[in-house]
């Protein structure tokens, strides 16, 4: 009898198809399981909407107060940043927010189960549960972005629309990469969870507005240390046609959606290294 272990080594394409199939099935089952607790499900979605709507309310107060816009951005441009950031964040919550539960999964020993299955540990971690509040986050982000697209007076060529889509995914990857690097730290030191909350707080506080209103030193920090400028600010500048036209920053801004991919690839390497040095909990 041929055992499962004796089956031929899979090709990369087969592995990818297998991962997608498993991810789809687990996500559907996890979502269905969450929907069985109707009250909890509705509250979680509603909480996601309320949370992000409060961000929108604060932004609308600012835009009403400063009718000419903020920094070098018109009011509709600020709305574009907010929409891109909120949608990226909603997708981040949907895809990657289980990274924040890593200390719990390590403590409960569930992380060890992931080592025992022929599937990427990272994928299994992301599939550990379905975060229902992401539905509210994504709904608010998509609606805000939709409004911004309508209000902005530019020609929406196919290239611009594709650039916007890639930028949103890039923003998702920037946040995912930062939290993945933090997860590597969490594997060794569960107390670093507060650092994750702080990064989240910084991104939601400063990521929704044009960084040009901040001092240059702070803009530098938010570009090269905590790269939240790449989430929405730089791509929005390009879309609105107000990006620098010369110098290094011109290149950095135009190619900013790729920063997420590069950071994420780096974070995956750090993650692989961290797993090789995993210490496990208990005996």
């Amino acid at each position: 009898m041929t055992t499962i272990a004796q089956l031929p080594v899979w090709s990369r394409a087969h592995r990818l198809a297998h991962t997608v199939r498993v991810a789809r099935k687990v996500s559907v089952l996890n979502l269905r399981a969450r929907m069985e607790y109707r009250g909890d499900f509705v509250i979680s979605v509603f909480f996601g909407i309320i949370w992000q709507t409060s961000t929108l309310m604060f932004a609308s107060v600012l835009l009403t107060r400063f009718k000419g816009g903020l920094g070098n951005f018109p009011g509709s441009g600020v709305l574009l940043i907010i929409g891109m950031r909120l949608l990226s964040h909603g997708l981040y919550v949907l895809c990657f927010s289980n990274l924040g539960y890593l200390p719990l999964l390590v403590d409960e020993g569930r992380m060890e189960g992931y080592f025992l299955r022929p599937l990427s540990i990272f994928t299994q971690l992301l599939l550990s549960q379905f975060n229902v509040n992401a539905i509210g986050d994504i709904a608010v982000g998509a609606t805000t972005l939709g409004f911004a697209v309508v209000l902005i007076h530019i020609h929406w060529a196919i290239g611009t629309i594709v650039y916007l889509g890639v930028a949103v995914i890039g923003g998702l990857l920037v946040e995912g990469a930062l939290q993945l690097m933090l997860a590597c730290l969490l594997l060794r030191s569960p107390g670093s969870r507060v650092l994750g909350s702080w990064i989240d707080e910084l991104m939601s506080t400063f990521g929704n507005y044009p960084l040009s209103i901040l001092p240059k030193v702070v803009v530098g920090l938010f570009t090269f240390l905590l790269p939240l400028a790449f989430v929405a600010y730089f791509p929005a500048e390009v879309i609105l046609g107000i990006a620098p036209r010369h110098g290094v920053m011109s290149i950095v801004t135009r190619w900013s959606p790729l920063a997420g991919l590069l950071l994420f690839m780096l974070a995956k390497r750090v993650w692989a290294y961290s797993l090789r040095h995993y210490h496990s909990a208990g005996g």
Partner: protein
Amino acid sequence: MSDADFAIVTRDLTKTFSVARRHVGRFAAIRSLFDPIRVHRTVVDKLTMSVARGELVALLGPNGAGKSTSIKMLTGILTPSSGEVFVDGRVPHRDRVGNARNIGAVFGQKTQLWWDLPAKQSLAILRDIFDVPKSVYDRQLADFDAILELSEFWDTPVRNLSLGQRVRCEMAGAMLHDPSIVFLDEPTIGMDVVVKEQTREFLRAQVQERGRTIVLTTHDMTEVARLCERVLLINHGRLMFDGTLEQLKSKYGSGALVNVTFSEPVGALEVPGARVVSHDAMQAVLAPMGVTTPEDIVRALISRFPVVNLAVDETNIEDLMRDVYLTTADELAHKRDSPDSDRDSA
């Protein structure tokens, strides 16, 4: 026999953790925060062993002996600090995915199933992850259900299952993909006697009918006595014994004891081949030595002394293990007295 003939081979397998030790004295907490003392603690120490295919082996040892850490290295969860490990010819930490296809594992106190989902859906996900053909999956599930009676509760979300029910599902999940080697870390902890017996029957069937190799860690000595042909004993990370339970008894146990009551006071009590464990005028306890059996002692007592009552007590296996753990700890302490064998180094 070559390495390929064995399911598991380890050579000088060692795992050392670096842990922070607190300062003592004035400002200890602050000094520990800024300048902690790093200590290297060897949890598994040059473990050399092998397990043949189709064997059911008990890995025993007191708490903190290094059993779970050894299993985590064999399953690819932990990377060894030094030494070699081969599981079905693979190095688990270098070929995690290949190893995962070939092994199953249950960590009794930890769940590997999806907490929010009914157990059967968890098993269906595992089927997808391991790419088990539908016909094989259905057959496996029916076989597991026949012994473990899973269908009584497999539609219940894992979070609502009792410990015994959950572990039975974990066991089915660990063997669903037909692994040739299975690691069970205290699988029957917290189970009632009926479920324990059910689980033992399941494990016996896995070895006898499916030819799986099983490595079992447990503190339940009845389980060891009923299931395992061979015992590997670890203490302080070192392999202290490798043999059958009977050999373990004869090496470390006091064996059977003969309790005798006399009808009148007896002075000097001498029986060939027997050690007098205790003796007062009317009663005595004797232990066989060498090839002498308890029956030899009974015959000798009846022929020489005014006996009114006799009883032969087999050594309790729990007591035996307590003696083994204490004795092996003493043996290690003696070894450690030599200056070059310090296992903790700053």
